């Protein structure tokens, strides 16, 4: 059974947050805004490519755009397998945290 590291969780969640616009800068901005973590693009892409090899995300190239100097974006999407492992892991976390007075609460 696969599990995700913290970095992988953050990136996967950020990809899901970004919906159809999930590419490097957007993922990076989501993590910075919500998780207050300042990751570099290199780190994010490294994580994404690792997840892609394991089959938890897929990617496709978009059209080249002018504001990027004619370079294409690479859009990511979380696969069903990715979603499943993430759900299992998060619910395990939630279960472990419930009833503890450590300021985590339950969503």
């Amino acid at each position, binding site marked *: 059974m696969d599990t995700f590291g913290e970095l992988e969780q953050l990136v996967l969640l950020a990809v899901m947050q970004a919906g159809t616009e999930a*590419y*490097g*800068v957007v993922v*990076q901005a989501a993590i910075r805004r919500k998780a207050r973590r300042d990751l*570099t*693009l*290199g*780190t994010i*892409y*490294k994580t994404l*490519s690792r997840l892609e090899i394991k089959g938890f995300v897929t990617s496709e*190239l978009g059209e*080249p*755009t*002018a*504001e*990027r*100097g004619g*370079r*294409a*974006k*690479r859009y990511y999407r979380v696969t069903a397998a990715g979603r499943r492992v993430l759900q299992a892991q998060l619910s395990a976390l939630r279960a472990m945290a419930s009833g503890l007075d450590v300021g985590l609460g339950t969503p």
Partner: protein
Amino acid sequence: MRPAPRLVRFIEPLIQPDFRGAIIGDLVERFETDRVHRSALAAHIRLWREAFMALRHFGRFPIPQRVNPVRSFFSDVRYGLRVLRRTPSFAIVCIVTLALAIGPTAAILSVVDPLLFRPLPYGQPDRLAFIWERGGNGSPITTGYSTFEDIQNRATTLASIAAVASWQTTLSSAENPERLDGARVTWNYFRTLAVPMALGRDFTREEDAQNKNTVVILSHTLWERRFSADSSIVGRTISLNEAPRTVVGVLPQQYDDVINPSAEIFTPLGYVATLPWACRTCRHLTAVARVRDGVPFDRSLAELNQLSSQMVSAFPKEYPAVGFLLKPLQQDVMRDARPALLAILGAVALVLLIAVANVVNLHLAQSIRRETEFAVRAALGASGGRLVQQLVAEGLSVALAGAGLGLLLARVMLPGLVSRLPAALPRRSAIHLESGIVLILALVAVAIALVIGLVPAFVARRRTLYSSEMRSAARHGTGHSRARATLVVGEVALALLLLCGAGLLSVSLVRLFDIDRGFDARNVVTMSFQSSGPRYPDNATVLAARRRVLAAAASVPGVTDVAAVTLLPLGGGLDRYGIQAQDKPLDHPERAPVATGYRVVGDYLKTMRIRILSGRDLTDADARDTATSPVVVSASLARTLWPGENPIDKRIKIPNSKTPWSTIVGVAADVRQRSLNDDDGRAFYYPEDYWIFALSDAVLVARVDGSPSAALRAVRRAVASVDPSQPIVNARTMDDVVSRSTAQRQLALLLFVAFALLAVLLAGAGVYGVLAGSVSERTKEIGVRTALGATARDTYALVLRRGLAMAVLGLGLGLAGAFVTTRYLQSLLFGVAPNDPTVLLGSAGLLLIVSFIACLIPARRAVRIEPMIALRE
């Protein structure tokens, strides 16, 4: 859309192709967003971080993970310092070797830089040039005021042109009269040089007129020295030659007059073309011009030459040749010193190379000793690059320490070096250990560190190809010893170059002092004195004062002969005139043979022991004989005017002048006048009394019994007693005058000898080091040989053969190099060819002896090896 930042374009091809578009595109997007929403600086800092991480994760040439190269470098430096502390003698030898080379390098660079390379301290100095007239043989000569004025009025390619003449004056003061060197300049001189005043104002056009030129500008040093840097000096009146002069300005501190390096005070020239001394042949002015911006010097020269041909056709008798010379200021000022300075710079560079070779050599030897340490580090996972980094860091500690010590050494050396520079050299005040030079040397130190680190690493890496199993004594260190031998061969070759240079220069100086200079400098004292100011209004009073000075000097006990003369041979000045013979009509007065005129009072030729070859010496009675006006000429002047004839009773005169026809009463031997190596001995001697005007300045020469340096003070006191208000300068022995005339050669010789000694010492140490290393590596082998019956003689031969082979190879290469390079010393040589076989082979022989001695010590150690002990180890 603006173009991507340069950094992005640089790293783009380095990113793996699959992710290139995605990552680089994101980088650009992020950068643009940051620039809008944050700041340009924040955007750039972010970009660098992103670029670094992108390269680390997706670079095609991965950056090693988890190693911060900067942090590990500092830890290497710390480790290097620890290693050095463990082997202090090794560290000290390396550091001192480098310091001994870097110190002189810094000092010489500090001298050479302002003289040859740094721009002169004027506005846009590259537009400034001298304008010389063309002499009969094409050489540059000074110009007369009328010619200057023609150029000023007619040349369109010049932004301005100024004229300057040297000037001596006396700063009168009851307790401390001082002789000052200065210059008389046209009003626009400082404007032409584009030098603003530090205080007060520049001269005005109105002040550059006869009787109005009663204003002066002071140099910064004079202002500080005599007027305590008092800024109220502007507008005040000072007394020069006991006449009032108004100070209008003070020059800035960095101002340096390259035309009259010793000038401290300036006054307007005050000429108009109608004055008798403003004529075309009154060539005592130096013209300096600023060529208009954008006008090539060629075009300006073409215009000047056109002007010249117009002038020559209007005044054909007043110009020796058609044409001007337009010479860039800095190059022309330094034309005499340049070859010597470059030769010295080359010499110090050789010393630096030898020192670096020696230090690399020491490190190679050291790295053999540290082989186990490196093997352990490699086994624990240190990559080759990591080990190199370690060695470079250690090298850096050594090189920077050497550079630091060297800079201290340079600070100590520099004042001595400056004091030995020829007095006529300008820009001496600009010679300092500048931060730019410190920076250059820091870079040199870094380069040395790289060499120190990379050479042993390269040698070590090559050696691993031999396979690490082959660790037998014979194989051990083959790569090292070959590299070390190569370095030593190079050191010997370079040392030989320096030794040849030193040899050639010392032979030159010996030959130079050996030549017959035509006078006897021993036991002669000289000093300049004067009779100027309102109390000496005319020739009669000046000459009467001069005779009083001679009488006072003659009364000093021990003084046997005295005379006064207008200039000293080898004293730095020359007073040259064209000479016309009465019986040889001149077709062109400006192409008359030129001779130096000495105006004398008293027994000058006798005092200087200048031989009379025929006829008689001048006497006191001659001074009053204005009808025949007797004159003595030198042998070479007589030969030039009347080859093969008897010159006695012939008559000569200076063409285009009001001087009378003079009758030759004697012929004197030639003397060296301009310099010891200049054999133009044409001269004439005549009584000062019947020259148009008596110079207020004269040089006293007195021959004494016994030590001249002891008599100097007594004579000086006697001269001063005649008129204490008149300063006395340059009181020295004639031997000192002669010696000073060779200051440039002496300095070059001193430096070459010092450098050559250092180089020979280092090369010897190199030879010794390599042999000592190889003997200790081969201890076992030599032990076996001895056990098998090798005699002491065989062992000596074994070691010496290897050492002398290196030396001989180095000497061969060095001789070949010497044949090519010694000609750069040509301008400093005298009486010896650059390829003089005696000097070259002698130098090689000396170096061979040194190498032999360096071989003997390790050879003796090899002979003493006890076979039993060696084999048991």
